[in-house]
Each structure stands twice: as C-alpha cells, then as structure tokens.
C-alpha cells in the first residue's frame, strides 16, 4: 500500500498542498482528480522523491522511499523521460541495464500491442507514440505500483482508447495504480477509488463502486458537486 500522510508543499509563499492524505492499495486503480494547478503532479513527484516536501510522510509498503523502492514502484510522467536521441530499442536496453525488474517478454508484447518499431528514434515520434513509449517503459517493469501522470494529455482519441485498453489487460492486473487526470471520461469505468483535491486538501475520497451503489452517483457527478457547487 502507498500511504500519503499529511503531505504539505509550498512553492515560494504559495501553499499548494496543505495536508493531503490518502492511500492507494495494490490491485486497485486510484485516481487523483483535480483542476489544473491543484498539485496532482507534485504529489506523484513527491511519492517518487523527485521534489522535497515541506511536511508529511510517504510510505510504500510501510517503508520510506529508498533506492530499492524504484524496483517496486515506477512513475510514468506526461512527458517522455528518455533521451530524445535514443531509439526505442536503446531506451529498452537502458531500462534492461539498470532495472532488475525489467521484463523483456512483456516489453516485446507491449511493443507489438502499441505497434511501435524498435529502430525508431524517440525524437521522431508523434506525441501519442511518445506517450506509448513512456507507458511501455513503465509497464514492462515488474513493479507493484504504477504512478501515471495525465496519461491522456494532448493525445488523439485512438491512442487514448489504446492506452485505456491497457488498464483492463493483464499488464496492469494485480498492480496498484495511482493515476492523475482531469479528463476522467475515458477511464471512469476503470477507476476503483477517487481522491478529489481542491485548494490543497483532499475534499472527497471514495470507492467508485460504493458511491454508485449507495448514492447513485458517478465520479463526474461527484466532481460537479465539488468543483461546481
């Protein structure tokens, strides 16, 4: 389980996160929802120790993040995080060189699934294909948790559908996923748990299925209540 406890973050004098707490379980897809600038990316960066916090604690299976955690949890940001001059093959080789958890068989499977060509340079790929490469490099690691930042940001509908398909496949099965997005429609049916952020705090945290059963509301309904009262 990933536990975010009382996370606080300031940028200059502005408090972006004012004590955010939530948990994300293995085997569940947890969606962190909020309008632009609410601090969704900062939360994921902080979980991966890519930005310092002004307060709070993050635990991954009860432990603070350390170098071994990167074999257990991976982060797929919304921009390509490999050298643009690399080919896809070189990027995969880089991952294989550094990560014990790299699963070459799964990487090959993903390559075919996304219809990507190994010899293509990342530099020459479209935005959609870069997003696919990012996903490939993250999903091909045998990790327990995946963090995904705005995976649908700025990509076409067909690529969105393809990426959404990944969530229902064995590629994500049994893993804990934290996804941030404000474009909920493509994956609403896949989300197990929603965490709604506003003004630096969690304003609502609920299991999607429970909300649907008890109150008859979808995530979008709850979002309307929270963000457009």
């Amino acid at each position: 389980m990933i536990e975010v406890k009382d996370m606080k973050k300031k940028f200059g004098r502005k408090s972006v996160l004012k004590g955010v707490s939530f948990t994300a379980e293995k085997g569940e897809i947890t969606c962190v929802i909020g309008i632009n600038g609410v601090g969704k990316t900062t939360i994921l960066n902080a979980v991966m120790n890519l930005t310092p916090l002004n307060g709070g604690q993050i635990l991954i299976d009860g432990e603070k993040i350390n170098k071994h955690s990167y074999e257990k949890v991976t982060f797929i940001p919304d921009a390509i995080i490999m050298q643009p001059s690399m080919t896809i093959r070189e990027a995969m080789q880089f991952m294989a060189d550094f990560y014990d958890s790299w699963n070459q068989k799964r990487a090959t499977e993903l390559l075919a699934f996304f219809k990507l060509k190994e010899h293509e340079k990342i530099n020459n790929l479209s935005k959609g294909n870069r997003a696919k490469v990012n996903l490939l490099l993250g999903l091909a690691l045998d990790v327990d948790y995946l963090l995904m930042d705005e995976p649908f940001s700025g990509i076409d509908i067909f690529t969105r559908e393809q990426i959404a398909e990944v969530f229902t496949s064995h590629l994500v099965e049994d893993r804990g996923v934290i996804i941030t997005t404000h474009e909920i429609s493509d994956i609403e049916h896949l989300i197990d748990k929603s965490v709604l952020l506003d003004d630096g705090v969690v304003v609502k945290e609920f299991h999607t299925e429970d909300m649907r059963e008890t109150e008859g509301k979808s995530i979008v309904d709850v979002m309307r209540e929270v963000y457009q009262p």
Partner: protein
Amino acid sequence: MNRFVKLVNFELSRFMKVYLVLIAMTVIVQVAGVIVKANGYMADANKAMYEDMLSQEQFLEKYGQMAFIDVARSLWFMGPITICVAALIFYVFIIWYRDWLGKNTFIYRLLMLPTARLNIYVSKMITIFLMVLGLVSVQLIFLPLENNVLKWMVPTDFRSDMTVSQIINWKYLSMLVPQTFSEFVLYYGAGFMALTVVSTAILFERSFKWKGIIAGIIYIAITVLIFIWPALLVFIMGRDFLYPLEIVGLETAMGIIVTAMSIWVGNYLLNKKITV
C-alpha cells in the same frame, strides 16, 4: 557490471561523438601546424640562402635551429588544447543541465534509477575526469608522431631535436602532463576538487532555483576560502610562518576536505532537495 560502472559508461557515450571530434580536431590541427611551421621555416631558410645569399651557418646564426617547442608555442598547437579545455569546462555545466533543460526530462529517469543518487553525482565527475585523462593521453600518444613529422620535414642541420619528455617539460604542457606522481596528484586533485565544487553549486541552483544561484556562489566562495586558507595564513603571518612542505601538506588536506564536503553536500541535495 554494477550500476555505477554502467552509469559512467552511459555518461561517456553521451558525449562520445563530440569528444571524438575534439580528439580528431586536435590531432589534425596539430599535425597541420607542424607541417605549416616546418614549411614556413624551410621557406625562410631557402629564401635566406638562395635569394639573400646567406650561408647555412649565417642563417642558423641569425634565425636559430627549429625545435618542436616552436610548434608547441604556436596557436596551431595550443589552440586545439585550449578549445578542448574550454569544451570540457563547458561540459561540466552541460553534463547537469542537459538532463533538465528544454524538452529533456531525462533527470526523471536518472533520479528514479534503483541505485544510490550519489552514483549519479560521482559518475558525472568521473566521466569528466576520464575525458580529461583521455585527451591528455591522446596528446601524449601523438606527440612522438608530431615530433617525427617535424624530423621528416626539417633536415638535421636545421633542427634541434627534442625528446618527448623535454617537450612536456615546457611550462604550459607540464601543467597538463605532470612530471612526477606527486605533481599529478596535486594538479589533477585540484582539478577534481574544482569539478566537485562547481557541480555542487549547480545542484544548489537546481534545488533552490534563483535563491540557489546565490547559495551556489556563496558555496564557491566558502570553498575557495577554505582552500586558500593556508596561503592566506602565510600572507598574513609572513613567509617564514610555514615551511613550503607544510603549506603543500595543508593545501592537500584542505583540498581533500573541500572535495569530501562538496560530494557530501551534492549527495544531500540530490537526495533531499533536488526538484525536477
């Protein structure tokens, strides 16, 4: 191969194309310099002897014999070395900023590697250091060749032969190619220390943005003060206050302290303060 070695290998490969161009440029320009300088000298000799009717002895008395040091003092020889030094100094900054700036977000990947972040820091330092040693080695390898080119082009009577060790004894080259092991440790140790100080200052900037620029400058000032403290002591207390060997010992100790401190602070910043 452990991850640290893989990181060094990776960092080396990232600069390899530019590095090979630098090596090729150095060799080509220096060899061309030998040819141009030797031709120039022989043209002067021919003009003096066949047009101005000077005897060989008179020419040599007037102009002297040509030695490799005449080439080494020229822009042909020192120019490429200066360009290589400038390129490597520039690369000390690029090796960090290339992972952050523009559309490049490779720093995400580097920081998320399942290895100690200290390895990222040290691998970049070692990469620069190996590149410096590599360029010096290339220079040493090609010096005898360039020396021989001069011998092929200038007849024995017109030249004063120098051995490679005599050439590298020349004041500027002796900085690049120290004569003794202790000189090597002192010169290259000081270079490595400067490398770690600048890298840590860059990490201050990367961690605290514009406030980090001030912090970085203050950090550099502090390290300079620590390093020159023994020399300052002698300056204030007088020349007789310390023996030369004591000054060298103290400077070495200060250098080790500054290097260790820079690596420690750099590691702390990478682990606790860095932001992508």
